[in-house]
């Protein structure tokens, strides 16, 4: 404290005289405070228990056995590819960039080696419909 703040009075001495020990908490006050603490804990536990579990949508649940959206996408891609090759023949594969070289490297029609019931190759089977 500066001299000017003292204003001819030693305030610190006054504060020292006026200082009191911390008050004791009455039993009823302590009981009330602890009761509040218990109630707040209970209320927060109830809130936590009531937190809704995030449920998956119906579509997600239907797709789950097939591996979810990734599994479905793979199945669809394979289906489209299979149907395309089935209808248009393996020649169409050669028009696909990158795939054509692979197909060309295979000599002849690899599907010709596939026989159906030891009587006809796969091309004949397709031709018969």
């Amino acid at each position: 404290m500066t001299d000017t703040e003292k204003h001819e009075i030693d305030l610190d001495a006054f504060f020292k005289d006026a200082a009191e020990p911390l008050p004791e908490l009455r039993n009823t006050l302590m009981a009330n405070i602890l009761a509040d603490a218990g109630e707040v804990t209970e209320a927060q536990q109830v809130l936590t228990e009531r937190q809704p579990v995030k449920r998956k949508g119906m579509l997600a649940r239907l797709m789950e056995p097939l591996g979810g959206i990734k599994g479905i996408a793979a199945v669809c891609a394979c289906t489209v590819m299979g149907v395309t090759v089935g209808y248009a023949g393996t020649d169409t594969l050669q028009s696909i960039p990158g795939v054509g070289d692979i197909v060309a490297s295979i000599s002849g029609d690899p599907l010709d080696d596939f026989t159906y019931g030891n009587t006809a190759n796969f091309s004949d089977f397709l031709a018969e419909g």
Partner: protein
Amino acid sequence: MAFDAMSDTSDEELLSLYANGDQAAARALMLRHAPRVLSLARRMLKDQAEAEDVTQEAMLRLWKIAPDWRTGEAKVSTWLYRVGSNLCTDRLRKKRGISLDEAPEMEDETLNVEDQLISADRARALRLAMNRLPERQKLALTLRHFEEQSNPEIASALETSVEAVESLLSRARRALAADLSSNRSTLGLAID
């Protein structure tokens, strides 16, 4: 965990324990901090019952905020002083129905000077002089001199800057000293 075993546990840890349902931690926090809030409220409100209400309410707010308490952001004691002083201020405002800025000095309890002349002492004179100060000045002085809070802690409790607290304390001391000086003859005070 028993309270004794928690005497070395930090406030933040106790709050965390309480947030996880440990009622012994709540008891430890109460025994550590509630008396200080009660002391502040008694000085501000001069009413034991109201001071106890404020203490209970401040502690209730602590229980509620416990799960969201962010360690290192504020000291529990400072936070409680802030809540306690705000609750006291609200009650004083309601009593008067006007804002603090417009608040006049407290009711003069020194009117009965004869009594003062008989039983005057420094402590009583100081309390009475403080009662004539505006609330914020009184609050700042109480936190500084009776609750032994630092200026930054007082600034946090009053939600203002350290510079503003220094100014507040300076004005409060000047007003207090002037008040005590002017009354020293009537109060028969042994000043120095």
